[in-house]
């Protein structure tokens, strides 16, 4: 009698283990009608909030007979990690993070819309010094392994220095403004809105390098899980339609829409407009197509891939920078063709440009 109780107990345990295992397991490949896309606060992604709140996303989702929810996540990296773990069908992230987080994690991802690139939104600040070359020997506060780190590497390259010439100190992006006020901090790489906050409040702060000197290298994009996309092209169609509907408003300078986005990102209209000035938005679908099809994109991704490999963030067991394959419009590829995990496509922006959505 005792042993049967034990067996029963064991069976129960095994069952609950199985249930647990299955419940944290997600299934990508299936035709679905409900989707979740995660986004975080950033100048180039505020249009998504507007589109969701004003029912533009719903309108386009309804047109294709699906439901889409744009979920705001407070922590940018957490948002990407949740997407990588299978919690979201799509996510907003930069090109570098798309390569090093989902793609390096084996999740095949597709960049459906490249909405903008940083054109001054990221920058290197020196305290009391005016030339980037003076950074030699200094400690640089930045979010390690982020686009800031990449920008620093590009900046150093431009004045004939390398990362060995400085010391990198990992500092949380939320604490940059406070950190700048301390005595030990002399050099910093960060992004907006912190960047402009520091520059406008500290006469000692000099912007010595920014992303406008590396145009098109820090790209903000909508990424969708490739399998989900394959089974549900409607998702990409609806999202692209909604996106360019908002772009149309922004291009016209619609005060109501811009004020809404400014407020949601915690600034005012003037502050938001100045952030937009350092962001190269693709208001026209045709510009987005041109950017996706450009010769520059594969070159940029090669640089990003090499930087990521040098810093060990292409994933373990990556023998070289070409370990993760990438695919670009027109059949161009980079790296291992047998391990393509990041795809850039122009399919849907092209449809938008041709008015076929």
């Amino acid at each position: 009698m005792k042993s049967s109780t034990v067996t029963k107990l064991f069976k129960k345990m095994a069952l609950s283990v199985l249930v647990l295992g299955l419940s944290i397991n997600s299934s990508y490949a299936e035709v679905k009608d409900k989707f979740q896309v995660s986004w975080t606060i950033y100048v180039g992604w505020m249009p998504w909030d507007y589109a969701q709140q004003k029912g533009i996303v719903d309108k386009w989702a309804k047109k294709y007979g699906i439901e889409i929810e744009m979920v705001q996540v407070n922590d940018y990296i957490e948002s990407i990690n949740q997407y990588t773990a299978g919690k979201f069908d799509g996510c907003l992230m930069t090109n570098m993070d798309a390569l090093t987080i989902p793609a390096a994690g084996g999740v095949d991802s597709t960049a459906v819309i490249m909405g903008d690139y940083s054109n001054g939104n990221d920058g290197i600040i020196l305290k009391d010094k005016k030339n980037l070359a003076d950074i030699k020997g200094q400690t640089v506060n930045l979010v390690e392994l982020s686009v800031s780190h990449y920008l620093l590497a590009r900046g150093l390259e431009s004045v004939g220095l390398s990362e060995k010439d400085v010391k990198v100190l990992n500092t949380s992006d939320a604490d940059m403004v406070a950190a700048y006020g301390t005595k030990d901090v002399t050099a910093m790489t960060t992004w907006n809105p912190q960047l402009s906050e520091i520059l406008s409040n500290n006469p000692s702060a000099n912007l010595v390098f920014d992303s406008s000197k590396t145009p098109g290298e820090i790209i903000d994009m909508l990424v969708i899980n490739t399998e989900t996309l394959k089974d549900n092209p409607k998702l990409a169609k609806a999202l692209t339609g909604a996106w360019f509907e908002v772009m149309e408003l922004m291009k016209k300078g619609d005060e109501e829409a811009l004020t809404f986005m400014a407020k949601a990102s915690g600034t005012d209209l003037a502050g938001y407009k100045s952030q937009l000035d350092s962001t190269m938005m693709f208001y026209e679908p045709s510009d987005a197509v041109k950017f996706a099809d450009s010769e520059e994109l594969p070159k940029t991704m090669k640089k990003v891939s090499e930087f990521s490999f040098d810093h060990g963030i292409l994933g373990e067991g990556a023998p070289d920078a070409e370990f993760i394959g990438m695919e670009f419009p027109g059949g161009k590829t980079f790296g291992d063709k047998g391990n393509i995990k990041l795809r850039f496509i122009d399919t849907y922006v092209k449809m938008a440009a041709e008015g076929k959505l």
Partner: protein
Amino acid sequence: MKRLMNLRPSKATALIIGLLPFILVVLIYIVASDVRLAENPNDKLLPSMNSIVEAVDRMAFTESKRTGEILFVEDTVSSLERLGLGVLISAVLALLMAIPLGFVPFVRAGLSPFVAAFSMVPPMAILPILFIVFGMGEMAKVALIVIGVTPLIIRDLQQRIMEIPTEQLIKAQTLGGSSWTITLRVVLPQIFPRLLDAVRLTLGTAWIFLISAEAISATEGLGYRIFLVRRYLSMDVILPYVVWITLLAFLFDYLLKHFNYRVFKWYDAGKER
């Protein structure tokens, strides 16, 4: 008739049923990880035991390509230095403040409300102020631990001092003790093992502040590494680090407890061990 409440496990049985939950957690992990890996062999959320072992080998037994140092050792040493210094300063500071607070009514009346209020300030919320005051170097990290932990120990010790039976204090006075000698001969010996107990209880809090401080700004440390690799979801590094931190914390607790009971034999009289 034997009641359940009176049945006691033998030492061997106690060991086995004590290990059971650990084994169960590992088993559940392995199954869940297998399920996820079957779908995506490169999944990073629940890495296989194999890749965890590989990551440990890489972090703890292989020299880093970039600096030539063993990252795991370097991280552990710098974290333990910060934690040790922070806890030591907190303990000394707390002892020095708690005795007058608990023992001298005038000091208590003057400072007790302030200490009680100060202990409620969440250090993480006033972090920018701490940065400006202590800078962003080692000092700030140790200071965060001290500010977070000291008030807790002070309040605990003050309470314990006030619980010393009045009879003892009166007796000591009839024997001719001054406030100073009674502090040294009656209060201090009784309070010291309680200080060690208080330190044990606040170690968990101290770790929280250490990890938070390292997450905010650092170039090495256990918390730093976790927050750095979190950026690309390297759970194969994070999980062993978490296990290691837990093990270290458990070890300190165990050592302090046994040191305490060994040195102050009267202290654990009648306690279940």
